[in-house]
């Protein structure tokens, strides 16, 4: 059991070090490929994945 936990702990720390090194995050974002260069000149031509989001407008 000691050896198993030793290997387990090493795996956890290695995974953590790799995740930190590679800049992993718990947040998820969508990735879009080949966004045209024209977006810089015409930002409105890009349609965000997150457009038309239903917003909370309440409060307590």
């Amino acid at each position: 059991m000691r050896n198993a936990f030793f290997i387990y702990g090493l795996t956890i720390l290695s995974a953590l070090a790799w995740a930190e090194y590679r800049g992993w995050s718990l947040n998820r974002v969508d990735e879009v490929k080949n966004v045209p260069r024209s977006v810089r000149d015409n930002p409105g031509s890009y349609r965000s994945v997150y457009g038309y989001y239903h917003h909370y407008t309440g409060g307590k």
Partner: protein
Amino acid sequence: MSSSGPTPSSNPQVKALNCPGCGAALTLRSFSQAVTVVCDSCHSILDAQDPRLKILQKFQVETSEDPPLIPLGNRGTIRGAQYEVIGFQRRTIRVDGMPYSWHEYLLFNPFKGFRYLTEYNGHWNDASVLRAIPVSSPGANTLNYLGETYRLFQTANAETGYVLGEFPWQVRVGETAEVSDYISPPRVISSEKTDQEITWSMGEYLAGRDVWKAFKLAGNPPQAVGVYENQPSPLIGHVKAVWKLCAAFLLALVVLIIGFYATARNEQVFSQSYSFNTNGKTEASFVTDVFELKGRTSDVEIDTQAGVNNSWIYLNYALINEDTGHAYDFGREVSYYSGYDSDGSWTEGSQKDSVTIPSVPPGRYYLRVEPESEYYRGTIYYSIALRRDVPQFSFFGIAALALLIPAGFITWKFMNFEHLRWAESDYSNSAGSDDNQNAGSAAGIAGGIGTVAGLIGDALDIADE
């Protein structure tokens, strides 16, 4: 069951006799050491010291009486010496009116003398009479024997219900003795108190398969049921080792935290303030100036701060690589509400937001931002800041949990085993109040006594023993 020793002759040397009650043949295996011998046919207890085998007692046998699991006359090697099973008895205690019976096998070696195998619900003990008297602690339910502390587990009156074979004492069916068990798993010290004497014996837990192997018995031993009083925990020794490793890993984790925080770039690569006119009818989206993300592939943290009050702003973000056209698309809402009602003042939300984009390769990037909000809420001022290579503390928290959970689970399993053990004890309630709180504290868990740290500490104490 190690070390060598003299063994009796491989050919059984027995003395043939006949029962004066029924005439059935009797066998004496311990020669002159037998004080009483039982006739298996008519269930008479005979005086083995009397040449005429005087009948001392006759007893009735119930049809449900279990025969010995190890037949009389069988020989097995215990601790390197060969012993023969010469006697068998069933003894019973009553707790709250419920009978609990165990079996005792009397073993004999002409050079080593007598020893016992006891069996209860598939749990076995190898026992022998103590040569020295254990030292009892005044005011505490403990004994000390050869530097080891034994905790009182149970005291009860045991009645002999069935006997078979021969015995080196005046055995009788129906005789009683006050039996007390003191445990220090895997050992148990038992005292048997009668009007005439107190006998001390020590037992050591044996697995049924070891008994079967020692006596070369066919088939499998009965399955052990529950946790026995001196049954060693299968996790003994593991708990402390695992916690030591866990502490070492947590220390390494702290070193990693310090290392990553010390070496991370944590560099602000972009910062700008903006305003959003909610009354405007024109296109709200815009792009920022190009900024460079340097170094290796790592994360980017985007902080948004907005002057919203009882309102919200939603920002559609796209972090776009100018050269490759690769974009990271996400949206963030910043909302803040406050007010006052019958419960007093309240607030909800925050004027700040932070999000981390994972694994962004180095390159030249810009942000495409598209703000949204309710119409006609005036102008909302907000600012955006980007930081490159920011350590994520959440991972360290997850790693710490991932290390603590298995260690905690093993500790819980260990304490649960001790709880099951002490649940059968007459003295589990007082266990936690004694100096040596080891297993008693485990029993205390059921009552929710003690702090988690205290329990873990206690578990380590037990595991260390």
